[in-house]
């Protein structure tokens, strides 16, 4: 991980660690903090705890997002500290969820904009002048447009990939595919490295092809406290505990010292969490049925 982040993430880059609740690469976020990256523009639909931690650690200059919160718990207090009141210092560029998905989609498809029927009669285009109305070339219909987003780096956590970076995901898909195809460089972090045969046995499940992947990192529990469907549950206890930690700048600093700067990497973080905590997150089993692709020669 250290090598992948050092090689692909540079000060001033636009970085997208995507994943909607599911498969958020906390391992990569923590490594970026450990390497003291600076002036990053962080893009994500839902900044979540990982960007609260990264903003708290001082790596970010700007957020591009659509929903800023700790789902089911409350606010992101490190972000709030630098976005509220007269001393607001973090730049914000905000959209709606579909606007963000549209931005990645336009970026992935080399299009100048993405049209959508959101934003009518709202203050969002005032708050963010990059959201602009356009007329349909085929009639009088008005729609809104958002510009392409092409991150310098997209970091995607997944259940499995092969050595070439052919990556398979199941469960919530979010907009990882769109973000990856939009990005200049893609780092894939996986629970499990598998052989090419495993990927080829189920090609419908491949979300990201190795063609666009720069680095594959194997990091079991790399999404904790987010989750990996079928591997481990979301650690809701941590999401609830984070509220008190992030409300207090000193507590947050102590937490970073203990859980980010104080560990060499994810393996040490896992050991520190302990088997009991991790085992309690393992779900029961609910296997998919299998399909027959047929053998054609």
């Amino acid at each position, binding site marked *: 991980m250290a090598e992948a982040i050092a090689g692909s993430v540079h000060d001033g880059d636009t970085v997208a660690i995507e994943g909607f609740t599911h498969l958020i690469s906390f391992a990569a976020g923590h490594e970026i903090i450990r390497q003291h990256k600076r002036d990053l523009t962080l893009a994500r639909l839902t900044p979540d705890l990982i960007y609260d931690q990264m903003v708290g650690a001082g790596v970010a200059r700007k957020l591009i997002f659509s*929903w800023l919160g700790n789902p089911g718990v409350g*606010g992101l207090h490190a972000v709030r500290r630098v976005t509220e009141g007269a001393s607001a210092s973090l730049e914000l560029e905000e959209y*709606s969820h579909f606007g963000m998905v549209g931005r990645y989609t336009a970026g992935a498809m080399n299009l100048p904009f993405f049209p959508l029927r959101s934003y009518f*009669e709202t203050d969002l285009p005032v708050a963010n002048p990059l959201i602009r109305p356009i007329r349909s070339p085929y009639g009088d219909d008005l729609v809104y447009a958002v510009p392409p987003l092409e991150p310098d780096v997209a970091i995607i956590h997944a259940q499995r990939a092969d050595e070439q970076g052919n990556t398979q995901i199941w469960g919530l898909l979010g907009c990882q595919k*769109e973000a990856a195809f939009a990005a200049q460089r893609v780092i894939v972090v996986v629970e499990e490295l598998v052989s090419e045969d495993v990927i080829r046995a189920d090609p419908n499940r491949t979300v990201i092809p190795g063609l666009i992947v720069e680095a594959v990192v194997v990091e079991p529990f790399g999404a904790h406290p987010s989750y990996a469907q079928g591997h481990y549950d979301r650690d809701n206890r941590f999401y609830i505990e984070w509220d008190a930690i992030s409300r207090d700048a000193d507590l947050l600093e102590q937490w970073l010292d203990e859980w980010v700067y104080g560990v060499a990497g994810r393996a040490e973080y896992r050991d520190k969490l302990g088997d009991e905590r991790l085992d309690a997150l393992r779900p029961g089993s609910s296997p998919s049925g299998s399909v027959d692709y047929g053998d054609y020669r």
Partner: protein
Amino acid sequence: MSPPEPVEAADFSASEMMIVAAARELAGRHVCFVGVGLPNIAVNLAKLTVATDLELVYEAGVFGARPARLPLSIGDPTIVTRATAVTSMFELFGFYLQGGLIDVGFLGAAQIDRFGNINSTVIGDYAHPTTRLPGSGGACEIAINAREVFVIMRQSRRSFVQRIDFRTSPGNLGGADGARIRREQGWLGAGPSVVITDLGVYHFDAGGVMRLDSLHPGVTLEDVQGKMAWQPAVADRLIETAPPTAEELRLVRDVLDTEGIYTR
């Protein structure tokens, strides 16, 4: 059939009344976009009571969810296992929502005005807000594209305001013109139809203005007027919301929110 066992007002919380009232409003609806928190419980309660064929859609990219537990977040793994379909967010927002397949979308709000316009972005000035709220998420597109919108929120003078500080999600805009603007701009959604609070239930009149139709048990019209910044339109026949039945309370407490996270 014997009438439902009566339940005293002291025996249920304001949140439980909100959940039950919201669930009942879902009778006859088929496809519902579920939000985090109270809407999540309300929709799951409706599916167990008044709308058993309800299809639960989660913005995270799930159609036809069958959650086996009440998730803290709306992206919980339980919404995936045994769902009808998992989609990318592109498909969910593009094909299902903007394509017009969602009957009801639930929204919460930090501020709402009499026309059902909603703020969930900032309190105060946008550049230097006193409170930075989460922002739109999917709310702005739900407000525009869902066939109708249910709002569920607590009522106070700070939340039921004359002028919202920021319009995140359009309601009935300036009133009667709202429907015309929605039509002319090709929106599929008709806007907000119900607002459920801890005090009562509102619908909207032909002019797009919120009208108090029902007071929860133990709540007076004066209580309501004291917790909003405008004089509400009141239905000719203002009724009392039927209290939760014993069965509704059992489902909320023993099945849906066993830890009382949202209902206490």
